[in-house]
């Protein structure tokens, strides 16, 4: 339950956060928390082998999304 509250705290920083860098960091942190929540759901439903696959893909796309946003800032996108 604490993780859900932390997701909403990060969501506040992602929506109202000053500047684009805070927002990127907040979205990345939300992705990491979602990964842990998915694994805990796997333990609840006793199907960890299924949920590990989904959480791996989630971590991967989260990483690629953060790299892409950082690249967009590097080549001179609008902040």
């Amino acid at each position, binding site marked *: 339950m604490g993780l859900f509250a932390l997701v909403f705290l990060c969501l506040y920083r992602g929506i109202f956060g000053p500047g684009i860098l805070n927002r990127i960091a907040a979205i990345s942190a939300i992705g990491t928390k979602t990964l842990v929540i998915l694994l805990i759901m796997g333990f609840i439903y006793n199907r960890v082998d*299924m949920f590990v*696959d989904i959480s*791996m*893909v989630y971590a*991967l796309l989260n990483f*690629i999304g953060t*790299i*892409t946003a950082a690249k967009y800032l*590097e*080549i001179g996108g609008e902040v």
Partner: protein
Amino acid sequence: MINISDDIITRTVSRVLVPFIQIYALYVIMHGHHSPGGGFQGGVILGASFILYLITHGLEDAKKRMSELKMGLFSTFGLLIYSGIGLLCLILGGNYLDYGRLSTILKVIPAQARSLGILGVEIGVGITVMAVMFSIFFDISTGGVLPEDEEGLGTSDE
């Protein structure tokens, strides 16, 4: 235009990570009927690995490995696999994508023929999704202008 990244950490991490992402994508495609995933999801992961390579190593280097023409050929080739298996079932006397009919030419029992037919269709879907995802990203990152157009060579010859 996306150039090669200056940061050695980004380049090295992506160079190490891309083969593992591709192996994981092949696992998702091959294991799609026992676990979450399948052709579309595996194709998206495979396309994401090429997109990661393009972002970190620049457009020129990615064009050498995966050109626009190759991606177009891959997308039509995957569609050919999909519709070819479907039409083969139609020719053998079943419905479209009725994999049980493939048992006569694969020399296996119908249940095994269904498993193999679904695997073939998923491979076709995965190749198509990978090629289309990468070519969409490619077109967006070039802004619709290819370097050979700028040099005045006219349109490409596909």
